[in-house]
């Protein structure tokens, strides 16, 4: 449940669900996010311009010429949100090629963790992940939690360019670089799938907060033939 509600400036509300990062708290954030999104869509709350869920916070931005902090927080007094993510959550399977051409950090990671590369791959594959949030770059999902034995810190020197489609890991998360971008995560493979489709004007992001994501392994040949 929400531990504290405060204002972030004069045109946003800061809902604090705690400081830990875990699925239970995040599911709570996402339940509120989905609930409020629905209310805003049905015009039951006026003036909301954005809802931004993250690990353990939810920020509600609003148009100060339509509403204000007091009017929106008043809604929270009667708001009943159950931790129900079922209807909004999708299961998504992402093809992933771990070939050395794409797995830029797999060998160095294997040396660092003292785990053979095929075992790292198996540990990454054998789990269904939960999407905590999307952002940093458009559509980038933050997926967790990865197996404890393959958790690492960010690279000492971040890459200036991480190729589009790269799958990275750091701390308890795995991500997908939806565009070429700078980045400091250890890259273990690449997906040929368009995870963020700019041309899809209604639904550009394949993965949304609360979705369940799993990876399946494809060969380099399958990767190269993907769009044919």
């Amino acid at each position: 449940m929400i531990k504290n509600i405060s204002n972030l400036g004069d045109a946003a509300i800061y809902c604090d669900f705690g400081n830990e990062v875990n699925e239970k708290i995040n599911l709570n954030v996402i339940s509120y996010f989905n609930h409020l999104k629905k209310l805003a869509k049905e015009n039951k709350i006026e003036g909301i311009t954005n809802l931004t869920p993250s690990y353990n916070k939810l920020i509600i931005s609003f148009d100060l010429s339509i509403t204000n902090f007091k009017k929106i927080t008043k809604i929270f007094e009667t708001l009943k949100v159950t931790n129900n993510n079922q209807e909004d959550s999708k299961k998504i399977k992402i093809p992933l090629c771990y070939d050395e051409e794409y797995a830029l950090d797999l060998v160095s990671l294997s040396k660092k963790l003292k785990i053979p590369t095929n075992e790292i791959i198996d540990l990454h594959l054998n789990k269904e992940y939960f999407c905590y949030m999307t952002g940093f770059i458009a559509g980038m999902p933050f997926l967790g939690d990865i197996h404890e034995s393959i958790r690492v810190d960010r690279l000492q020197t971040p890459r200036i360019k991480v190729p589009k489609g790269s799958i990275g890991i750091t701390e308890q998360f795995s991500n997908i670089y939806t565009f070429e971008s700078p980045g400091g995560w250890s890259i273990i493979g690449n997906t040929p799938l368009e995870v963020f489709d700019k041309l899809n004007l209604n639904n550009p992001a394949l993965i949304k907060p609360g979705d369940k994501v799993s990876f399946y392994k494809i060969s380099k040949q399958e990767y190269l033939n993907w769009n044919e």
Partner: protein
Amino acid sequence: MSDTYFEILRPGTNSSIQDKGRNHLYHIGITVSGAMDQRIFILSNALVNNDLNEGTIEFAYQGPLLKLKNGNVNFAITGDVSFNILRKNSIIEEGKCFQNYFLENEDQIDIISTKNSIFGYLSVEGGFEIEKIWDSYSVNTKAKVGPNNGEKFSAGEKIYIKKTKIENFVEKKIDYENSLEKTIRIIKGTNFNYFSENSKNKFFKEEYLVTNLSDRMGMRLEGPKLDNIVNTNIKSEGLVKGVVQVPADGNPIILFSDHGSIGGYPKIAVVITADHDKASQLIPGSKIKFKEISLYEAEGLFKIYSNDTKSYLEQIK
């Protein structure tokens, strides 16, 4: 499709199409973007009888040099800007901001530069023939989001204009006062208490310098280092325009229209909505001061800001 267009003879340093911005997409990592100075963006549309959220050309410092082809237009420029109209009979007319002009086929607009500010706006009656992306014209060049593949305008490009002919030109003018205010009013941020007592005092008492490292994403400031006594990183969370965040180096950054949707630096303050426009116009080298106010006061100041905008709009009704 229209045949009337501006040929870009010189694009200027950072010219892009902007409207009010793009909402409801923060949660998938797409920020609001939109005009840096919202009020004068609105006024530029009003001067040429447009919907107030029509797309305009925002420019920074040096603006574009544009040649009109196959038509005539009603245009206006807002901001603190020096520009000329180069008539086809080689007469050079000095342009004035906050009034509209009739531009004929083959005439040129030369936007030389902004003066004591950064951003200006060029609007044409009827708007530009550009495709909206996710319900907005706004371009975010860092994230490559928006029309024109998310790129700023470049030399040789053509910007098509929806309305090809102006039948009835009526002159309009706004008597506008550019802000020279150097005090930025803020509300304490959610991590205000991460900073030492000494730093908190200095944040309000001393001046901060606007550096060259400022753009549509944010404005980097230099001044007394803000000493974080709790943690220089927080778990990544949502951001909004106006947030003043402090990375480990202790120098504050004010976030503007193209800021990232989430971030992990502590937030010492948030600039009030009524001061977003004037903060975004502060040129590098400006010395600014922060002043703390309450949420209640900020809401009152926003009402005054909105009423001021309304009275400017009423001047041309």
